[in-house]
């Protein structure tokens, strides 16, 4: 399986595998199809972050990718106002830990329109979005009256 990444080199020599790492190749392939994939343990059925090679609970080597609805809630959030090039050029933006309904936690950027409404406990949906910095983004779900 190709990592689709680029090699770490010194002169003409390849020093080692670089990023993205091979174990996440399936995740990036899914993202290219517009799917957000997570790791599923075939033994204990738990779902894990896409970087995970083995099950954090039972230790089984993970082989299965499963799509997530992307549904979840904001566990924690910080709005970045200063100290990065992006904040200087484009203004404040929010980065949050999303607790997905499937279990795993994803550090994700939050949609620009939600920067100032991103609050702990808010329902969000993480979706594949090629134009975002990482290829996926969390957006607040519309409130149900």
């Amino acid at each position, binding site marked *: 399986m190709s990592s689709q990444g680029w090699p770490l080199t010194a002169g003409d020599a390849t020093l080692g595998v670089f990023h*993205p790492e091979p174990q996440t190749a399936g995740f990036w392939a899914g993202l290219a199809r517009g799917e957000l994939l997570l790791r599923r343990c075939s033994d204990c059925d738990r779902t894990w972050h896409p970087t995970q090679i083995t099950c954090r609970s039972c230790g089984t080597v993970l082989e299965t990718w499963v799509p997530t609805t992307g549904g979840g809630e904001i566990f924690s959030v*910080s709005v970045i106002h200063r100290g990065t090039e992006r904040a200087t050029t484009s203004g404040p933006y929010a980065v949050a830990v999303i607790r997905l309904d499937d279990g795993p936690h994803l550090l994700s950027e939050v949609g620009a329109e939600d920067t100032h409404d991103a609050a702990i406990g808010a329902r969000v949906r993480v979706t594949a979005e090629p134009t975002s910095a990482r290829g996926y983004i969390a957006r607040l779900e519309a409130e149900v009256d």
Partner: protein
Amino acid sequence: MTATTAVIADYRQEIVTAKSGERPSALQLGATAASRLLTETGVPRSRIGALFTGRSPQAYMALQYNHVLLNELALEPDYTSEITSHGAGALGSIAYAATLVESGAVDFGLCVTNEANALWTTPGAANASWEADPVFESPTGVSTPALYGQVASRLVHDQVVTSEQAAAVAVHARRWGSEHPDAWAYGRDELTVDDVLASPTIASPFRLLDCAPWYPGGIGTAVLVCTEQAARDLGLDFVHIAGNGLNTSHERLTQWLDSHPGDRFPATGARAASRAALRGAGQSAADLDIVQTSAPFTYVLLALLMEMGIVAPDGLDDWIASGGLGAGAAQAINTSGGYLGFGQVPQGLYLLTETIDQLRGAARGLQVDSARRALVHGHGGILASHTCLVLEKE
């Protein structure tokens, strides 16, 4: 208790600020401090059985940095390694050396940590890429304050720490630091809570004055660890390493959450590390005269003090109001200003050397009266790795 308890026999420290116009490498700082330490204490290089460093300095990346250093110093130790548990590895090196000395495996351990990242790099811009997953997390644009902000936003949401309580930390850190000649805050004006609350937001909930400044220079520190008898024979003013504790709970915050979805948050390794260090010393948190904790942000400092049992969560307001953070408190907190008042160098061991100075009655800033017992805490990663030492002076 074993009959042999390791001591810190002595240390040497090299500090160069950007203001001096000099620009030494981290290796120059560490090697100079170590060489001076061995020469001036009279310990032959052949007797150094263990050499430990922190992880490779950010401004001097080398595979096996400890080997670069031992090559420079012409040392031939039996045991040598980088102690790589983030910033906690710097203080952790002392625990590794003490354990070897107490086991009888070596006579002398040398621990050297050094960093000059502020002289050679832009640490504020680069640091988040060290602390976050380079593929999944760094591209979100997360900064180091925003990574710690994930923790602090929970502290605010769960009503553990308020912005006013956090601001009080900055006020007192400035005051302690303003008295210490090596500190970033030396000679700077006092702050008020209102100053902190009026400063611009960096990454919520942190305002500018909630954040530790990067130390405007480089620091290299070399520490000699040996038995009490060896230190006496050398005529050195030693300090007992009465207990030590280390704990690492994760590499990424999200991984910790994946494994502990229903647990108290933040639940850090500072709790286990401080308990182990106090247990080794046969003491409780109330027996400490001084506590130094490595915290780059105000909210985080209070969370760590709660984790280590220094202040109870429901007593935070009273503790601050009664001067718990100030000079004259029953337990002095961060006597050189800590990261917030002294400035932050990832690996300088300046909280440790400040503690040794205090216990020797030779503080360069405000001296704590008759201080005999102290806890020093070092942490790294986003609250990932923790080391605690309990130091005592007879």
